């Protein structure tokens, strides 16, 4: 089991979601974050107060996957999130010791295998 953490541009999120969907990745969690990287800064002025905004809106995806899904997931993200300009983001692959589905108590592989829709 791995946790794939990807930071992407917000305007690319829908493309990424679609690519993941095609790669049969179903479950994931998304967080609005602010990224700081190699890019240039933006200046904003509010009356006499001038500030540099060094942080940019980004979106973080966290995707728990079993081993066979690691590669396809990464590839789906790489292909859909890339613009080629500074600020495209990063992917981190973290080891996971255990995954549990709260609803059923199922663990690991079973926990990340999607169920038939019908709920929420």
């Amino acid at each position, binding site marked *: 089991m791995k946790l794939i953490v990807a930071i992407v541009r917000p305007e690319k999120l829908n493309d990424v979601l679609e690519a993941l969907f095609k790669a049969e990745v179903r479950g994931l969690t998304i967080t609005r974050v602010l990224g700081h990287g190699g890019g240039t800064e933006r*200046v*904003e002025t509010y009356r006499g107060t001038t500030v540099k*905004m*060094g942080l940019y809106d980004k979106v973080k995806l966290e995707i728990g996957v079993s081993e066979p899904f690691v590669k396809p997931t990464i590839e789906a993200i790489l292909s859909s999130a890339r613009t080629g300009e500074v600020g495209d983001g990063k992917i981190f692959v973290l080891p996971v010791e255990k995954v549990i589905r709260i609803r059923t108590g199922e663990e690991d592989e079973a926990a990340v295998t999607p169920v038939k829709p019908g709920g929420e």
Partner: protein
Amino acid sequence: MKRLAWATVPLALGSALAAGGPDTGSTAWMLASTALVLLMTPALAFFYGGLVGQKNVLNTMMMSFAVLAFGGVAWVLLGYSLAFAPGTAYIGGLAYALAHGFMEKGKLLVDGGLPVIVNLGFQGTFAIITAALISGALVGRMRFSAWLVFSTLWILFVYAPIAHWVWGGGLLSKALDFAGGTVVHINAATAGLVGALVLGARREFGRVAFLPHNIPFVLLGAGLLWFGWFGFNAGSALAANESAALAFVNTMFAPAMTAVVWILLDYLKNGKATAVGAATAVVVGLVAITPAAGWVGPLGALWIGALAAFPSYYFLLVRPKLGLDDSLDVFGAHGLGGITGAILTGVFAAAAWNGGTAGGLEGNWAQVGYQVLAVLVVMAYSAVGTLVLLFVTRAFVPLRVAGRDEAVGLDAALHGEEAYPTTEGAILVAEEGGAA
């Protein structure tokens, strides 16, 4: 129609006047009305500003506020004169430019019971809101400096002549337009349509969902617009009289009826009554009753309100599918609402209620013809005039922003601000440049 009354029709109303003094009651109402109409432009800023995404809020609002500034100054210096000073049938003269024409023998002129200078303000608020309305079709991609140039020229060379034709004693004086259905709404909507076509769609149009960022703001805008519209319509009686009272009541109930129909249509379609829909319906109903307000009775107003819902409702549904990025549906709401209202004014005008002018239902179908004609003439001139002014503007400054700025959002890119700034990661810049 009505503004003609300004100079020529004697005061048929109550209050006995001391020679030369204003009718204080009508003056009070016109001052209040002018304040109400002025408030409509900030109200529009909220109506529009709530409908756009978070990265374009300030730019959208500033497009309205900027017209209050640049358009207001242009109006007092020149626009008012082009609309209302004696001139040809096509355009007014320069006699009232630079705020001339309001004094006589060292005293402020009073006419029709009102200090004439009230007209400079009252009419100015109409010019301003009309230009501001156009911006709804152009948000998210227009360069702000281009908007400043274009909207100012537009008030002078599109709005002022049309106001002259309809109210200044010009071409279209046979059409009934109580408070500006053609001059304001059809005119602005046509300009918006042309502008949207010339600018082209936003880059993400059709690929990304453009959602409103703050629907309470949309409701706030709609509520304040309704409030201000009482000045717009009932103020157009230019007196605190029976006609103002009738126009007021119609302005209250027609949009109520539009909202009833719209909510029922929403239920039929999705089983859900949307708030954005209800707010839109109120505006459509207000637009539709504008030309009719003092010409029809309350039941006629309800009919106009009800019928106006249909074209706008269905056009708003198909508009995005036409590939037309009239971003905030200026044409669907103000254009179609205005056209429906203008034509139905000719149908429902009731001689008993307005003191003598019959409409189609009372046998005077010719009136409908005058109404249609006025609509067509205004749309034609507005389209051509807008097109010309856009090209003139483009000679000085590109109309669209760079693609990069469109992606970042116009608030940060053009105004150097965010609507809801956060302090995280904001590093104070000292004078010398300093910091990381």
